[in-house]
């Protein structure tokens, strides 16, 4: 007697674990760069976040009587992404609390992997932003240029806080922004390479884009969501972002506020985004538009986090609106 399961008997070598750990690996280069920009404590924050997420996942699954699948990489990825969207100068308590919100409430109470409506990492960030508003909006660190990554251990963090580019632009205007970050070409260069204040993972646009391109090369993601999201964001920022119409800076809009990280690694989350390609384009355009709306009219300088969370529940609806095209309709049309 042999195993008699149903066809197909051969299957591709891909698996959920392989996908999740590959995405985690794509986030390692920006993390390493972040250590050199903000100091060694970002590595500790990320470690706390990843370990907390995996621990909360294991405990949640035990408590809820589900099979424990903590090594599938999805919790580790959430931990990585959660660390990437919090400032580098916060207490280690924050990622641990964020992990409970992200994994226990955001993921397992909503059904577990595959059923969660909202991106767990962003839900964790939204929770931290509401409960620790001061730390989450002020624990920014200026980028280091001397490579002394252990310096904050000796001197402490509180004395050196700074402000993020979008916050400066929003609250103090373009003149202050220029004074702080330099000429446009200097800004583009330093922001693209990563030397600027910001969240742990939003430093280097270059490394984020390279990671995203690698995921496309592996066919884990397609161009639809990143291109549609960034295109809409750039277009609307150009039209409405300046003092008058059509004078905004689309490139600056892409390089700030975690737009690239959101477009390549957050909005493309399989579970919380639509599956159909047309639906993905519409979904990502919605995120781009909401991001611009929040940045220009809302209370927060960034916006992509809430934009993605607002569009997450639209995923299944968009999939039901934009169904795949059938091979051919029956004779005499649809019933």
């Amino acid at each position: 007697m042999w195993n008699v399961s149903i066809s197909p008997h051969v299957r591709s070598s891909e698996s959920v674990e392989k996908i999740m750990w590959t995405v985690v690996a794509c986030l390692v280069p920006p993390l390493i760069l972040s250590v050199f920009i903000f100091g060694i404590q970002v590595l500790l924050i990320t470690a706390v976040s990843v370990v907390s997420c995996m621990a909360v996942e294991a405990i949640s699954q035990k408590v809820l009587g589900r099979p424990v699948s903590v090594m599938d990489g999805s919790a580790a990825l959430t931990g990585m992404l959660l660390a990437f969207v919090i400032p580098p100068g916060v207490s280690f308590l924050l990622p641990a609390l964020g992990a409970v919100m992200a994994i226990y409430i955001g993921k397992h109470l909503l059904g577990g992997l595959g059923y969660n409506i909202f991106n767990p990492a962003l839900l964790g960030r939204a929770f931290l932003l509401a409960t620790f508003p001061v730390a989450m909006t002020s624990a920014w660190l200026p980028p280091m240029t001397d490579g002394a990554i252990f310096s904050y251990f000796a001197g402490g963090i509180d004395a050196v806080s700074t402000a993020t580019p979008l916050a400066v632009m929003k609250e103090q205007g373009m003149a202050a922004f220029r004074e702080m970050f330099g000429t446009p070409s200097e800004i583009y260069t330093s922001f693209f390479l990563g030397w600027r204040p910001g969240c742990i993972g939003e430093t280097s646009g270059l490394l984020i884009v390279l990671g995203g391109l690698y995921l496309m090369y592996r066919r884990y993601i397609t161009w639809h969501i990143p291109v549609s999201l960034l295109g809409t964001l750039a277009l609307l920022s150009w039209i409405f972002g300046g003092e008058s119409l059509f004078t905004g800076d689309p490139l600056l809009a892409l390089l700030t506020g975690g737009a690239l990280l959101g477009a390549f690694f957050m909005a493309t989350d399989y579970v919380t985004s639509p599956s159909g390609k047309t639906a993905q384009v519409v979904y990502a355009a919605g995120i781009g538009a909401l991001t611009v709306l929040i940045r220009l009219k809302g209370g927060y300088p960034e916006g992509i986090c809430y934009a993605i969370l607002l569009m997450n529940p639209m995923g299944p609806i968009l999939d039901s609106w934009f169904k795949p095209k059938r091979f051919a309709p029956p004779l005499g049309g649809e019933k």
Partner: protein
Amino acid sequence: MTPTLTFPKGGVHPPESKKLTEQLAVEVMPLPAELEIILGQHIGAPCSPTVAKRGEVGEGDLVAEVKKGLGVPLHAPVAGSIKAIGKSGHPIRVSVPSITLKVDQAAGPREWTAADWQNLDSQELLKKVHEAGIVGIGGAGFPTHVKLKPPADNPVDTLLLNGAECEPYITADHRVMLEQPAEVVEGALIMLKILGITECYIGIESNKPEAIDSMTEAARAASGAEYQIKVVALEVKYPQGSEKQLIEAITSRKVPAMALPSAVGVVVQNVSTTKAVRDAVVLGKPLIEKVVTISGLGIKRPANLLVKVGTKLSDIVEYCGGTKPELARVVMGGPMMGFAVSSLDIPVTKTTSSILFLTEDELDTRPLSACIHCGWCLDACPMGLEPKEIGIYVEANRAEDTEQFGVFECFECGSCAYVCPAKRPLVQFVRLAKMKAKR
């Protein structure tokens, strides 16, 4: 070389695994002691025996026929005596009525003599095809004479021969095209005459360049003012040999949902079926034997064997040197759509194209997990259906609501389950949904 044709939507690229047998010439398997001839060999009505226990039959004699309904007669693959009319193991239906034939080893093979068919009209040719018990060898086994008589309101203008052989491992059609190209083309000429049309395309996947060459040569020799037979190279992509996908690849015509190929003026026949049609008409030989690929890393000696219908898997295993200890699964048919069997006490039927002996390394038995909505199944499905939704609905006990996702247009090619990273048994979900959903 001209560019290869393919269907535009969906499809997957499983490892071809044809190296094991593609260079092995067809060898004739010696007769086993007994044959087990299943009465319901294929789609349609099962046959009723026309012989009695202990009766003597010669090779090619009628042993069973269809009393009413869709079907074709069944013939004795070799000379022998009827040992029993009882039950046989079956890959899907577990136990089915069958005839056990004790082989007369002394009788020797019957000589089939060629006769001229050019003077026969299409009705007489069709009758010969019917009487020879010919069904589609490649797939479900639809009676060939029925396909060659399309409804009067669907005029047919094109005959397609399916030599795609897109399932991994299988090389039976490949060897037939390579070793007997002239016979295949003669079968095509016969079918063109039956259909009263002149145009025929032979679609072959480009991973069989030798078969493309041999068939092109034979097709050129037979084409002329009266009939045009053309070989077209197809891209290597599964399920290239699916009827609707093949028709779209070659003719750009789309067969409507729930309709037959004749709705777009096309008749499709497998190349080995075509060869069987030729044997039926030219030699008067019924469908009593076929080329079967024996492959996989779990069999000692992979081979392309010409076996009699009714040969048991156990006899084939013995002839091929036995199985290896690593053997984990035995599959009748291809690895994408074939059926796993639990025992070797099962006979070859008219529709068996391969028997695969697969080891753990070739299979993937990782457990399923929840759907993560990656959407890969949507991209893989050649029919534009939503396999992930069908699976989720079936798991939620809502199989009756799956028609909206196209469950009845699914032909179970398995492309979705092949790519699924969560290892979800999507074909199984579809079959459950089809059973429960009312049309």
